[in-house]
């Protein structure tokens, strides 16, 4: 589902490459953690998958798309298949919970009756059925992240990318978010999550890909955060 082949990425303004000859693949329906110290290239890898950045060398594939080669016009096709959530939620402050989720469908031209049907469904999936009409500032951090996940998932993407989704949340709330991501993973969605949080990684015992200075230094199928930290 996700495949990187000898991918390197150098930013113009920095001397050291952010990613250095990375080869890794994540299969359909898999759940994988992307770990590593700050600056090791986790966010860069996710940005390549979204075509927010283009690799300096190597090939990036998502499903059947060669991401680096996509024409500007076909980038939306990629992004409609890849959902993403971030540490800072990125909700629209002037829209309600359900409007925030609906927005993701409106802007890709989904018909209104579809939107009316699927938005409540996905809000129920993330456990926010009673809070559809709240504004984001009326929600806790954990609830806001649930809205963000609902928005990322509402179009049923093949892949869900999460960049430190629990970075702003305390331990119990983080655990609930992980349960939610697991539930989404069980629907067949491939999940790739970048994180610093070793408690979570240790408790989930899922695949772990560890980056260090832009290189893959470890790839275990039922890993823990490990000793190298």
């Amino acid at each position, binding site marked *: 589902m996700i495949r990187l082949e000898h991918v390197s990425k150098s930013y113009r303004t920095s001397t050291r490459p952010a990613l250095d000859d990375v080869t890794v693949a994540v299969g359909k329906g898999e759940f994988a953690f992307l770990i590593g110290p700050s600056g090791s290239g986790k966010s860069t890898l996710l940005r390549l998958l979204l075509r927010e950045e283009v690799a300096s060398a190597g090939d990036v594939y998502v499903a059947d798309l060669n991401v680096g080669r996509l024409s500007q016009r076909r*980038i*939306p096709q990629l*992004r*409609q298949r890849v959902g993403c959530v971030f540490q800072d939620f*990125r909700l*629209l402050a002037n829209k309600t919970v359900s409007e925030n989720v609906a*927005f*993701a469908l409106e*802007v890709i*031209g989904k018909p209104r009756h579809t939107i009316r049907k699927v938005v409540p469904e996905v809000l129920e999936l993330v456990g926010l059925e009673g809070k559809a009409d709240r504004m984001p500032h009326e929600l806790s951090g954990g609830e806001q992240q649930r809205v963000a996940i609902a928005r990322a998932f509402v179009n049923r993407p093949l892949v869900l990318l999460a960049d430190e989704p629990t970075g702003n949340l305390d331990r119990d709330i983080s655990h609930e978010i992980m349960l939610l991501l697991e539930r989404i993973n069980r629907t067949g969605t491939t999940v790739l999550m970048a994180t610093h949080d070793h408690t979570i990684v240790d408790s989930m015992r899922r695949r772990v890909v560890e980056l260090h200075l832009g290189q893959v230094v470890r790839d275990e199928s039922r890993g823990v955060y490990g000793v190298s930290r």
Partner: protein
Amino acid sequence: MRASFVFSEVVTGLRRNVTMTVAMILTTAISLGLLGGGLLVVRTIDRMQQDYYQRVETVVYLSADISANDPGCTSSTCSALRGQLESAPGVQTVIFESRQAAFARFQRIFQGQPELLQLARPEALPASLRVQLSDPARFPSIAKAFTGRPGVDRVTDQGEYLRQLFRALDGLRNATFVIALIQALAALLLISNTIQISAFTRRAEVGVMRLTGASRWYTQLPFLLEAVVAGVVGGVLAIVGLVIGKVAFVDRVLAGVFEAAIVPRIGYADIFSVAPVLLLVGSVVAALTGYLTLRLYVRT
């Protein structure tokens, strides 16, 4: 494409920066209004030119000899001159006016002033060939070709003072266009600036749109439409301004001039015939500005 969604985005965008929106629309309106004014001046000048040049003549005054001895333009000198004038390029008609005919006309014109008539003798008036040019600009070449020929006294053109008048009007028109152009530049900068501000205030939305895979149209159309709205509303205001300008200013101040038919009246039909031009120019230029701004300044 969900039209209602795009439309509501446009309205939100315009409402969020009311002051910029108003400034943008007013500047656009003034610029288009000046453009419209310039176009109306052009129409008026054209019509006046047709009018006046139809009435003016180029006159080839004939020598004393011919004036005295050739009342029918039958001498070889006179008929040759007439023939050459008739075949000269740009000449429509050539009419011979004998000394007697000139005197008769003189008497008609000065009917009310018997003292003057008493003084006048036919001998003082030359015979002439009166030439209608299809293109008044041809006068210099005719004058050059016929001045100093045997039988020709001098060549005059009543159009000379008109040409001065029209040069002044042309200057007025050009000045209007220059101001319109400067104003248009200000309007373009304001439109561009408004779009940038609009894109900045909506960067969260645009960010979400990008990441959810909205097409370029969905992310950019609202901004483009904002610009087009400015162009169209500006155009409508400009047209309204022209109508008000006609009723409240031109019709009053120039009432006497219109009455005397010196300047053709500017009608509503004239305004409505430049109206589509203003709307078209307004919306197309605004859309292009919007498009370029998005290309250059806004990441999508």
